[in-house]
């Protein structure tokens, strides 16, 4: 099953078919989410209109964790089965994951200022999220730090796996420590505790961002497959 998709030629065909669907779904879902989040959803009875920051902050934060998890799984597959596409998937996940993490930190800070009175506090959720951002940067730096790309890929994959320990720490930080950050209100036992008028725009934005992630991922993986072929042709020209 796995090796059916291991073939780069087959991947190019399949991803070519999927790309327009990813793009269309991302645009439509984000547009609907923006409309509902800005015009339909009510203001919060405690936080007023500032609650609308949630519709970008939470999807960014979820996608930051999703991208890292995808990167770690792909890295494990690349290390264990030496699957060539898995390595490219992990590498292609990192830049967009770093963007989501940066945005979660930044929008969180813009939400924290009016609600907590500070742009930044060294609390467990915020600090572990900052560590996630550095893990992404470290992964990218390590990947490109070797002359031999396969060595860089291996070292970066190991970092991605070791760093995965941070993902559950981020998720449960609000339960394990006293933090300013509010606890989970959507993904938790007993179902979501926010009203459906706020849940809908949140889910639309989150699923839209998910499609955007796969859109960018496929574009970058296709680009990396070309880059590998370019490298092989150039090597042949030098040695041929």
């Amino acid at each position: 099953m796995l090796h059916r998709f291991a073939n780069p030629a087959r991947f190019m065909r399949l991803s070519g078919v999927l790309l327009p669907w990813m793009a269309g779904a991302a645009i439509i879902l984000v547009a609907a989410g923006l409309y509902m989040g800005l015009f339909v959803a009510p203001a919060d009875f405690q936080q007023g209109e500032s609650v609308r920051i949630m519709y970008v902050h939470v999807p960014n934060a979820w996608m930051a964790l999703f991208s890292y998890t995808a990167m770690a799984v792909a890295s494990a597959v690349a290390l264990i089965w030496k699957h060539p596409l898995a390595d490219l998937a992990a590498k292609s996940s990192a830049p967009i994951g770093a963007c989501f993490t940066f945005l979660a930190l930044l929008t969180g800070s813009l939400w924290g200022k009016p609600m907590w009175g500070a742009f930044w506090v060294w609390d467990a959720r915020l600090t572990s999220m900052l560590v996630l951002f550095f893990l992404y940067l470290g992964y990218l730096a390590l990947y490109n730090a070797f002359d031999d790309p396969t060595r860089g890929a291996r070292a970066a994959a190991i970092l991605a796996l070791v760093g995965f320990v941070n993902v559950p720490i981020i998720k449960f930080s609000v339960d394990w420590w006293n933090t300013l950050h509010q606890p989970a209100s959507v993904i938790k036992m007993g179902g979501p505790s926010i009203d459906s008028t706020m849940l809908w725009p949140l889910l639309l934005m989150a699923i839209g961002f998910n499609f955007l992630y796969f859109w960018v991922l496929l574009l970058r993986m296709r680009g990396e497959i070309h880059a590998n072929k370019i490298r092989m042709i150039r090597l042949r020209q030098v040695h041929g």
Partner: protein
Amino acid sequence: METITNFLEMGGYAVYVWPSYLITAVVLIGALVSSIRFLKRNAETLKALQEEDKGEA
């Protein structure tokens, strides 16, 4: 007109709400555009190299 102004004011939180949306849009669209360019650039380089290769063969 007043409703538009009201909307833009975001109940006094405009300086926090709008930058959140704007920066998210700029960064994510930036990531998308740079990925499209990365793919395009590599596709063009590969095509040129393959044609060069054929010419030599």
